[in-house]
């Protein structure tokens, strides 16, 4: 039954880092490096030397024909390296892999577009670069132009295109490839909402036709919509492969295991973090204890501790509440109240705590992500961490608990209802 289109076994990729010292870019560097290398021969195993980094380590997985597989991971987790290996741009340092079929890659749309050439010329050039044959391009030319919506500008040099037109044309060419395996990386970050919907639709079609798609994105809702299964990469390793909703939850919770409290270490912050230095974010129960799980019926509070090193006027500190899927529940700032806004129009240096109370019976049960932000409206953003902390809300005692079913939506407010019998 098993008929994998892609099979990779223990694929690893090692890169050199610290290029300035270690990679001889000019002959002079080569000569100096040569001298150093003789010395290094006796000291260190080259494979484990700190000038190398494993971008991927022992990745193994299979993809079946017609499957749409999501790949998620933070920046630097190895997603791009994996795609480059699968599309043969670069070779693995170790390991083995098999790919059955043509791989069409959309690693950054518009690769090979030349600004001096017209839209028409670029369609042919880009098509050829992506691996289409000439008659194939001829056949699909009108379709491509129509999809891109650049119409009458088709004979204008693309350097005169708006960036939106440029990207639409580029995606249109790439989208009309017919490879057995399509590798898509972050193309949906471009274009307006209308065009994005079109792109997603096109990708859906591709999957419907039984072709295999590898889809890399930071857009969790696109991943959830388009893929059934997802792999999660972290620091070059495959840490999870699961049905997409589970994998996305795992990804969003990664590295957020601290219990109800988050401290910012100095190495996590920018060197020039002053004048606003975040210290800690905490979730507290009504007794003032730092907890990972709060009770929705009792209410809880969230506090952010921070240092200010010079006078800041107009500073506002706030939180974003999000579900683990990345949907916002609400945003709130400590200066929302006009009275506080007056009182703290300028904050002198010192240590501060901004605390906000979440009233009882607001949140539904589930796991939530807290983001924090400190900024002066429209002037400057001092600090932002979109995924500072996660915590769990327990629904014991919440409205409607007589029925054990899960309730939809992130909030579960206690609302006034009245029931009256209407007499006819």
């Amino acid at each position, binding site marked *: 039954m098993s008929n994998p289109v892609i099979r990779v076994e223990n694929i690893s990729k090692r890169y050199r880092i610290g290029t300035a010292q270690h990679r001889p*870019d000019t002959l002079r560097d080569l000569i100096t490096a040569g001298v150093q290398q003789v010395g290094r021969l006796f000291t260190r195993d080259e494979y484990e030397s700190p000038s190398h980094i494993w971008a991927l380590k022992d990745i193994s997985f299979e993809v079946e024909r017609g499957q749409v597989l999501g790949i998620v991971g933070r920046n630097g987790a190895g997603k791009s390296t994996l795609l480059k290996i*699968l599309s043969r741009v670069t070779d693995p340092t170790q390991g*083995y892999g098999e790919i059955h079929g043509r791989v069409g890659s959309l690693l950054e749309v518009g690769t090979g577009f030349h600004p001096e*050439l017209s839209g028409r010329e670029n369609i042919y050039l880009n098509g050829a*670069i992506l691996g289409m044959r000439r008659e194939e391009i001829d056949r699909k030319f009108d379709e491509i132009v129509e999809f891109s919506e650049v119409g009458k500008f088709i004979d204008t040099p693309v350097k005169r295109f708006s960036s939106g037109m440029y990207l639409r044309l580029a995606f249109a060419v790439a989208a009309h490839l017919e490879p*057995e395996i399509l590798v898509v990386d972050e193309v949906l970050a471009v274009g307006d909402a209308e065009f994005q919907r079109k792109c997603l639709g096109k990708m859906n079609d591709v999957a419907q036709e039984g072709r295999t798609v590898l889809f890399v994105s930071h857009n969790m809702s696109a991943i959830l919509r388009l893929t059934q299964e997802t792999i999660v990469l972290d620091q070059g390793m495959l840490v999870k492969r699961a049905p997409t909703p589970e994998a996305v939850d795992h990804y969003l919770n990664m590295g957020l295991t601290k219990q109800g409290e988050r401290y910012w270490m100095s190495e996590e912050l920018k060197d020039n973090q002053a004048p606003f230095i975040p210290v800690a974010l905490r979730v507290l129960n009504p007794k003032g204890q730092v907890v990972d799980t709060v009770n929705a019926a009792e209410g809880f509070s969230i506090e952010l501790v921070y240092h200010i090193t010079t006078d800041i006027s107009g500073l506002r500190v706030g939180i974003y509440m999000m579900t683990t899927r990345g949907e916002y529940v609400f945003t709130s700032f400590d200066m929302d109240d006009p009275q506080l806004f007056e009182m703290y129009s300028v904050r002198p240096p010192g240590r501060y705590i901004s605390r906000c109370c979440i009233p009882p019976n607001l949140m539904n049960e589930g796991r939530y992500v807290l983001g924090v932000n400190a900024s002066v409206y429209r002037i400057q953003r001092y600090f932002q961490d979109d995924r500072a902390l996660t915590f769990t809300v327990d629904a014991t005692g919440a409205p409607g608990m007589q029925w054990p079913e899960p309730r939809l939506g992130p909030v579960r407010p206690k609302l006034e209802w009245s029931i009256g019998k209407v007499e006819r």
Partner: protein
Amino acid sequence: MENSRRQNNQIPVVYLRPAAGWLSIDLKELWRYRELIFFLTWRDIKVRYKQAVLGIAWAILQPLLTMLIFTLIFGILLKTPSQGLPYPLFALSALLPWQLFASALQRSSISLVGNANLITKIYFPRLAIPLASVFAALVDFGVSFIVLLGVMAFYQFWPGWNFLWLPLIVLLALLTALAVGLWLSALNVQYRDVQHMVPFIIQVWMYASPIVYPIETIPEGTWRLLYGLNPMVGVIQGFRWALLGTTPPDFTMLISVGVVLILLISGLFYFRRMEKTFADIV
């Protein structure tokens, strides 16, 4: 539909493995990508003359102006012998294959770095890039060849049957450029010193070839043999002979061909060995 069915019947299987040692040269794959080579060549030509008022006329002006300068300095002022030919014709008949070689070499040696954005994003045989650069030079050559025919007509020279050798001689010039270009382009990926060296190499190489002076200037015997190590000696001598019926190429031609073959084969292997790392270091 029909198309996809055909593809299903013969789905290519690709194996991903660490790059190991000297790879064999996959000419079949290169042939499959012939349309890409065509489009890259076409792009190079198209882009070169975009937004230039004179456009492709530059391919005529360049050899013509160089011919005039050489005639003035070497022909009239220095009275360099010219194998019994009018000096302008003597110079132009060498400038043509020379400029073909020089521009092919120049373009191909920087071609990989110039196309870094392609190399780091998409797979295709990397050989397509220097090959396209070399082919693009051929178009300029074709245009300036018309000028040569014009100058020949002006001096009332008509080529004999030797003319038929011309394509082979042009091919030798291209292969020479490709052979050196393969080495230099692959080296340039890692050592950008190469692109600073190329103009200098070309200049020295020009004076080491019988362009402004006839081959007879070089003493016969050992010196002439050593001189023949420069493949462009054979190319230029052969080109003049095929068109204008001057001294036919002798054993120097054999040496030239031998040198080109050695450079080309070693260049191909070096290129193939390095190509797997281009995307990582370019």
